[in-house]
């Protein structure tokens, strides 16, 4: 009655808040989902006590239409695509074959036991068992995310379980509908035709659902391409269209989950590139809010729904056998499939991975939603099935959830006794980390592949042209990104430092050779990139050009130098120093999907420092190697080093029709980092290098350079050549690609690059 409703209305919003703030140490032991179910029980008890009946249950409609879509959209939108598609084969095997195996074995096993009399006298048949098996077989994405959030497993394993949980919906839906239809038909009517129809319907449902999702992804991308003037409502479109993809698929009786997953997966790259940074941030945050909220409500309701004596039917045999079978057959299934898969994989899945994958096959709300949809008249034992499902869900989510982390820890190789590491060991450990990352990068961990190359080509040429805003396409060019990011970071640290010191005037340090951008760079820069500058609004909707002008001249890019004096008086302790200041190795868990944490790169300063240092040392080595080159070539080599913008005002004579040979591919960069706001800040600093050799390999360059022009300009830049040491830490990124107007036929060339930017000091 009213009492219960008001209680619930008051509690639910609080719950949402509180869940997010739950004590981390508690949630690291007991997964949030288990705690939420507990709370659901308590709440359910209260409501039942107040109303004498369960007024609130998780109805299938509410679940499937209002709670589930957000969770899945979130999963799709934040999916690490590269990882996902690299392992697509294995994921599909687990999702399709694994789920069918689970469904069949559980269904048949239970049927066999029923025939054997283990369950007593219940009104049920083979088909109903198979139906039950199919709905209880599916691994649940909500539960998987909830539990794996706390358990850090390697990324391949994670994507396997996660991907499987998302893709198995295609199978589950089909099996459920097929067996539902069979039950309606009655056992006698089933013949080969029906079975074949069932198999065909699987393909139709699965591929149809995915297709719907992809179509909507295209729609969203196109839409964001056109929303330049209405950026404020961009985020809304994403959610609306995402939901629409779900509903459309549902309407067409296709797999709605697959639809919304593929919608999220396919559109992420393009909408992140097209939308304004603030919209991207909004979408990311709101997505997480919705997903978290939904998940909370789902689990709480799973708890509440249990407190209803009307639905409970206890049948020891049925319930216990179900638990046993899903557990055992999951293990058998995973090990069997992995054994087969490992024959074809370059890197086999290890034993521990398989154990975790089997143990991580959690069932959750989707199973409950499906079982609640059963028609009581056709399924006399519906309540029994509901009870069993609930118990299965509780068992997997709570018991397996809680024990997952200890299991993973226990299974891992025992480490050596924890003695205090010597300095040498500490340093070396860190060196090893960096070394591994470097070797992984050199060996190109996500390797080549003909199909992948073809797909990249296709995507670069057609899709990006079709789906991305022209300005977004241009700013995929990393030179601009890097410049933009550095300036933003600079601005932020500048203001922070100013706040700390009480005034912003401190940085005007004349002894630092600050970039005299105003004079040399700004005018040229804005001239050169008018369309980019105009279209890209920086934060606060101020044109980026003015931000650049305001910020860049006055800030020294290396804020640490200023702090140096302040730190001399600190206590010295070698271990402490190492602890504090060793660069962190780039963790291999980059791709971790997380429900509650948005990935922000905390290593920005580090990256900047390392980047500066590396560039400096390369510049020096280049200089020392090349200064001895014969004078006849001096112009060219110097020309490479000199700041490009200088030449632009006079450079109209340069041959702009030359095609830059930037058609090279750096596969690592064609991954989805299309200048997306959050991701670019994730610290990949792409650079380009000129072919630095005696004489220029870059023919485009050569042709463009008019030696006479250069000589004149050379005079204007007295200090530049020969003083390539960088006493100042200020940094300018100059790059000829940007400084010539992109010509239509070079747009493709602009999108991929592998040349370095020379860092040139300005005086």
């Amino acid at each position, binding site marked *: 009655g009213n009492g219960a409703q008001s209680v619930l209305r008051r509690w639910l919003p609080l719950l949402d808040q509180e869940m997010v703030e739950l004590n981390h140490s508690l949630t690291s032991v007991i997964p949030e989902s288990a705690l939420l179910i507990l709370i659901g029980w308590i709440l359910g008890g209260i409501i039942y006590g107040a109303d004498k009946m369960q007024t609130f249950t998780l109805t299938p409609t509410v679940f499937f239409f209002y709670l589930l879509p957000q969770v899945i959209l979130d999963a799709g939108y934040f999916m690490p695509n590269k990882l996902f598609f*690299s392992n697509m084969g294995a994921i599909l095997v687990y999702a399709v074959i694994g789920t069918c195996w689970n469904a069949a074995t559980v269904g048949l096993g239970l049927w066999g036991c029923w025939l054997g009399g283990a369950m007593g006298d219940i009104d049920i048949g083979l088909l109903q068992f198979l139906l039950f098996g199919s709905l209880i077989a599916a691994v649940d994405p909500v539960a998987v995310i909830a539990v794996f959030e706390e358990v850090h497993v390697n990324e391949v394993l994670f994507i396997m379980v996660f991907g499987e949980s998302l893709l198995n919906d295609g199978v589950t839906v089909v099996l459920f509908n097929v067996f539902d239809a069979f039950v309606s038909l009655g056992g006698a009517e089933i013949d080969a035709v029906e079975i074949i129809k069932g198999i065909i319907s699987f393909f139709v449902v699965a591929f149809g659902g995915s297709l719907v999702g992809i179509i909507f992804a295209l729609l969203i991308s196109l839409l964001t391409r056109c929303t330049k003037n209405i950026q404020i409502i961009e985020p809304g479109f994403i959610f609306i269209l995402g939901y629409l993809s779900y509903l459309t698929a549902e309407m067409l009786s296709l797999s709605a989950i697959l639809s919304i997953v593929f919608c999220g997966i396919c559109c992420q790259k393009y909408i992140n590139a097209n939308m304004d940074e603030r919209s991207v941030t909004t979408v990311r945050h709101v997505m997480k809010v919705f997903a978290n909220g939904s998940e909370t409500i789902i689990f709480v309701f799973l708890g509440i729904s249990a407190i209803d004596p009307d639905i409970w039917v206890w049948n020891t045999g049925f319930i216990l056998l179900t638990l046993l079978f899903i557990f055992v057959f999951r293990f058998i299934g995973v090990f069997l499939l992995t054994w087969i898969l490992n024959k074809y994989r*370059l*890197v086999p899945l290890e034993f521990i991975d398989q154990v975790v994958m089997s143990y991580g096959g959690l069932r959750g709300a989707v199973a409950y939603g499906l079982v609640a949809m059963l028609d009581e008249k056709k399924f006399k034992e519906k309540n029994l099935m509901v009870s069993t499902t609930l118990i299965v869900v509780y068992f997997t989510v709570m018991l397996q959830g809680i024990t997952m982390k200890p299991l993973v820890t226990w299974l891992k190789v025992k*480490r*050596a006794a924890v*003695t205090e590491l*010597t*300095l*040498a*060991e500490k*340093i*070396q*450990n*860190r*060196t*090893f980390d*960096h*070394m*591994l*990352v*470097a*070797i992984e*990068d*050199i*060996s190109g961990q*996500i*390797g*080549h592949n*003909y199909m992948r*190359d073809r797909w990249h080509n296709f995507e670069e040429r057609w899709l990006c042209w079709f789906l991305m805003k022209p300005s977004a396409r241009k700013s995929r060019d990393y030179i601009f990104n890097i410049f933009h990011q550095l300036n933003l970071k600079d601005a932020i640290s500048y203001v922070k430092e100013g706040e700390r010191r009480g005034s912003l005037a401190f940085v005007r340090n004349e002894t630092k050779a600050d970039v005299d951008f105003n004079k040399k760079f700004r005018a040229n820069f804005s001239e050169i990139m008018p369309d980019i500058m105009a279209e890209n609004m920086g934060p606060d909707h101020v044109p980026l050009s003015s931000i650049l002008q305001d910020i860049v001249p006055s800030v020294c890019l290396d804020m*640490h*130098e200023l*702090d*140096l004096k302040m*730190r001399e008086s600190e206590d*010295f302790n*070698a271990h402490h*120093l*190492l602890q504090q*200041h*060793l660069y962190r190795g*780039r963790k291999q868990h980059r791709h971790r999907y997380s429900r509650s944490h948005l990935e922000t790169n905390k290593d920005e300063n*580090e990256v900047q420092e390392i*980047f500066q*240092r*590396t*560039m400096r040392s390369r510049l020096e080595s280049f200089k020392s190697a090349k200064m001895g080159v014969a004078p006849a070539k001096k112009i060219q080599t110097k020309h490479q080093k000199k700041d490009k913008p200088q030449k632009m005002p006079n450079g109209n004579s340069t041959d702009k029709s030359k095609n830059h040979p930037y058609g090279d591919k*750096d*596969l*690592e960069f064609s991954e989805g980092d299309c200048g997306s706001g959050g991701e670019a800040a994730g610290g*990949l*600093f*792409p650079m*380009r*290098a000129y072919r*630095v*050799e005696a004489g220029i390999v870059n023919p485009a360059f050569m042709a463009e350079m008019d030696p006479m022009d250069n000589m004149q300009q050379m005079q204007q830049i007295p200090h530049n050549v020969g003083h390539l040491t960088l006493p100042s830490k200020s940094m300018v990124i100059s790059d000829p690609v940007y400084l010539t107007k992109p010509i239509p036929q070079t747009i493709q060339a602009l999108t991929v690059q*592998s*040349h*370095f930017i020379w860092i040139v000091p300005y005086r």
Partner: protein
Amino acid sequence: MGSTNSTLSKIPNVEELVQETGFTPAHIVRLYDRFEALDKEKTGHLRPQDFGAINRLAINPIGDRIIGAFFSPGQETVDFHSFVRILAHFRPADKKRPKDPSMPEPVNSRTSKLKFAFQLYDQDKDGKISRAELLQVLRSMLEMQVTEEQLESIADRTIQEADLDTDDAISFEEFRKSLEKVNIDHKMSIRFLR
């Protein structure tokens, strides 16, 4: 890329490579594809600039040293064999390999891995990590906030802890000894993915 076999035939001395490094032919093909991707000019050799084009290496504190490790002293280019040989250091050790003293030490044994790591420090190849060399590495791996005196202090303490024959430098044996508790195979192996 075409089938494995067609690519395999392009690579000279594949069997020797497989023997020496322990990579499977499938792995070698993948590495060859990678090599070709890096070798933009199709010269069959890699130069430092080609490595330099790998963007993420520039944000690795010891990225340049790793690049240097690929080039034998005096060599300006790396051919495919050397490329694979260096990468083979990072293969997980073959647990089942019988210890055969007559065979040369496999490239991915503990000793070989340690030697590789040692060479990263010992740039002048004199067999010892001098204080200056250690300082260089430390400088590249520590944030710029750390002052020169602090760096020197750390270097001194490190050498003190590891240096057994008090020659103010760390020889390979001392290096090995200082890391005897560390699971090198675990720390210096990567799973070469497809």
